[in-house]
């Protein structure tokens, strides 16, 4: 039973779903404060809803770029070493038409960000929320404008003396090379909100007998690539109807007798002096740019260890290089300064100077 007040309240609640839910689950959730919403609601829509006021010039953007972006993307956004290139493949004609002609050229290698992006809000939002890659959300609003402007200037979309702001970003949108290059006319949006729902574009039928097909192999991995993904014998279960094929051997080499692939139970990491340094590599995301053995963006740790193996001052020298950053020793892509605590610098430098053991 309920009092008449409660009954009416319940009735009203049923009529307005929102309040009904609020009454169904008392004590769950609370209103968000304005400051909380402001702290997290950072998205910028294509109509620029959510874009904060601010401005930044191409020149300011270049400074930020060279300090914080070039180490992954190259000084001119052209680098292919870590991520797909950001810049390249767009023309002055594309800026006029809003369609990137090279997207029709299957011989053009890769697709750069400026070839693909159709809304400038996306670039702004991307940089603001997720860049720099190892320190996302660390740029100030004006820096985000500046970096966006610098990136666009590399593609000739804005002039070198341009200052981008919330007031003129809509004009920049009108110059984006691929602004007319997207479509939502497909059947893969599971809602009705993006225009007419179209039927699936690929229509197959389920033929069962004497179907019109020529089972001729048109593509397979060449023998030299057999072991590219590692020895497949070590990637298959050791019991059951089949085993993994030993790709360290030539194809077709049929085995005699039972397969005798060794199981390789994963080894517990050996305790060694390297453990603190290895933990720091993770903590400071060093491995984003350096491989253990091989060059990624910067040199592999073993390569560094080998280079400085004979130097008496290797430890101090390397600590200094990590702290100050540098460019030119291993190639043109700069390493940003890494202001780590001295103790951590010492651990890393000692580890490098003594051979960079990987376990």
């Amino acid at each position, binding site marked *: 039973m309920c009092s008449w007040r409660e009954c009416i309240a319940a009735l009203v609640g049923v009529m307005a779903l929102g309040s009904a839910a609020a009454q169904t*689950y008392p004590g*769950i*959730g609370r*209103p*968000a404060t304005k400051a909380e919403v402001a702290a997290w*609601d950072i*998205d910028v*829509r*294509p109509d620029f*809803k959510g874009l904060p006021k601010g401005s930044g010039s191409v020149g300011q953007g270049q400074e930020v770029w060279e300090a914080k972006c070039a180490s992954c993307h190259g000084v001119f956004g052209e680098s292919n070493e*870590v991520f797909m290139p950001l810049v390249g493949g767009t023309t002055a004609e594309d800026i006029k038409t809003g369609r990137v002609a090279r997207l*029709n050229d*299957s011989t053009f290698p890769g697709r750069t960000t400026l070839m*693909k*992006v159709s*809304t400038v809000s*996306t*670039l702004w*939002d*991307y940089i603001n*929320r*997720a860049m720099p890659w190892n320190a996302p*959300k660390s740029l100030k609003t004006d820096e985000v404008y500046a970096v966006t402007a610098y990136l666009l200037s590399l593609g000739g979309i804005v002039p070198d003396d341009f200052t981008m702001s919330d007031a003129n970003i809509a004009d920049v949108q009108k110059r984006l090379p691929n602004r007319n*290059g997207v*479509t*939502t006319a*497909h*059947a*893969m*949006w*599971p*809602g*009705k909100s*993006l225009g007419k729902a179209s039927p699936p574009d*690929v229509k197959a039928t*389920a033929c069962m007998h004497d179907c019109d*097909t020529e*089972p001729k*192999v048109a593509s*397979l*991995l060449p023998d030299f690539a057999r072991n*590219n993904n590692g020895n497949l014998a070590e*990637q*298959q279960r*050791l019991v059951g*109807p*089949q*085993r993994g*094929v030993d790709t360290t051997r030539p*194809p*077709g080499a*049929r*085995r005699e*007798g*039972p*397969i005798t692939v*060794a*199981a*390789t139970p994963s080894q517990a990491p050996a305790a060694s002096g390297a453990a603190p340094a290895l933990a720091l590599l993770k903590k400071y995301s060093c491995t984003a740019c350096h491989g253990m053995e091989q060059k990624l*963006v910067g040199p592999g740790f073993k390569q560094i260890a080998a280079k400085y193996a004979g130097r008496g001052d290797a430890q101090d020298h390397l600590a200094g290089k990590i702290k100050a950053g540098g460019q030119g020793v291993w190639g043109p892509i700069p390493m940003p300064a890494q202001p780590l605590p001295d103790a951590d610098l010492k651990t890393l430098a000692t580890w490098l100077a003594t051979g960079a053991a990987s376990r």
Partner: protein
Amino acid sequence: MSATPDIPSPSGRLRKAPESFLTPDGVRTVFAEAKQGRRDFVRGAFAAALTGAVAGSAAAQAPVAATEGDANILTLPEHSKGLGQAVVTDGYGKPSKYEANVQRRQSPGLTQTTQASVSFAPLQSLFGIVTPSGLHFERHHQGWWDIDPSRHRLMVNGSGDKLLKRPMVFTMDELMRLPSVSRFHFIECGANTGMEWGNVAVPTCQYTHGMLSCSEFTGVPLRVLFDLAGVDYKRARYVLAEGADGSSMTRTVPMELVESGEVLVAYGQNGEMLRPEQGYPLRLVVPGVQGVSWVKYLRRLEVGDQPYGTKDETIHYIDLMPGGLHRQYTSTQECKSVVTTPSGGQVLLDKGYYQISGLAWSGRGKVKRVDVTTDGGRNWRTARLQDPVMSKCLTRFTLDWQWDGKPAVLQSRASDDTGYVQPSARQLRAVRGTRSIYHNNAIQSWLVEESGEVRNVQLA
């Protein structure tokens, strides 16, 4: 101790005695001695044999036919005669050491960094439809985190004041108090099989199809939270989901899927909490839609009256079509299947009976039928579907097959309850070309060679 276990004859047939085991003469001697009560001798002899086997030593005892029977039967193993290990030897149990080959793996050369990368689930080694949580494929854009659930918050707000009554904040404690549902769904990356649009690029189904997993997810229907916040469903037709990690992944989800009750704010996976690699403590579950929309480390949901054009729907996850247009907001994972055994990189041990087995799924509903061919598509047979067959969930299919030792090309072709039939690569390319990267749901071909080796191939 060496980590080389003895691999017995796979058929269980009597074969030549493995090296380093007892010869029949030795066995007879042991039994004879045993009858005479010389137990020390017996113990010593078996211990020596076991040590030899475990170490894989090639002690040169001439292999002689085991006329008495299978040594694995005749000679009781240590585990039949000794005391096993204690409870709670491991407070969270792990797979057998003999399963060490079953791992998620990276494909070399695909990405330069390990934080913006992907690892593939070993589909060729899995049974049924559930992916063990530790083998679930991974896709991180800026590395993964293990987030303290007591400090994690979920915010619901609107892109304008009129789109909901009140922006709200929920703690994990509160979300886990709400009425929950548990449902089985597949999750597939939109780029799954993306390396194979133009030609064969990778050897096994782990790499061709392993950005696919399936779990029982537990959580709260998102509709419940939107009702609490008083969302105006007439105006708010789009939802933005946003992660709390560095990449703060964002994707637009159509409100229809929320209204249907399908979209979950999930914290549970296969009976435990989500794994950190899968978004612990909270992720969005958007059944039938590509994995990028299942935002991990979910921190915020915004309702709006326009799509958001986020980085992962304007720069990435766009499908290039012939003619140079990119399709934007492609989300649905269309009907697809793959034979997982036998599959690329495996070698069949003998002629005779095999069960062809694989997985089928559709982002539009239930798998209705799977057909399998062993002659490259000329003739097909309808496979058995294993129960349960659930909507937007992996379905296991099987078919009996006698391998006669001759070359064979295995394929599977799924259709769903909307009538959609999985296309061949030729049919798919005729419409979408080869540069789409995303949403390759073509029929997969495996060539079984006379040697028993199975290879990834594409047919003309």
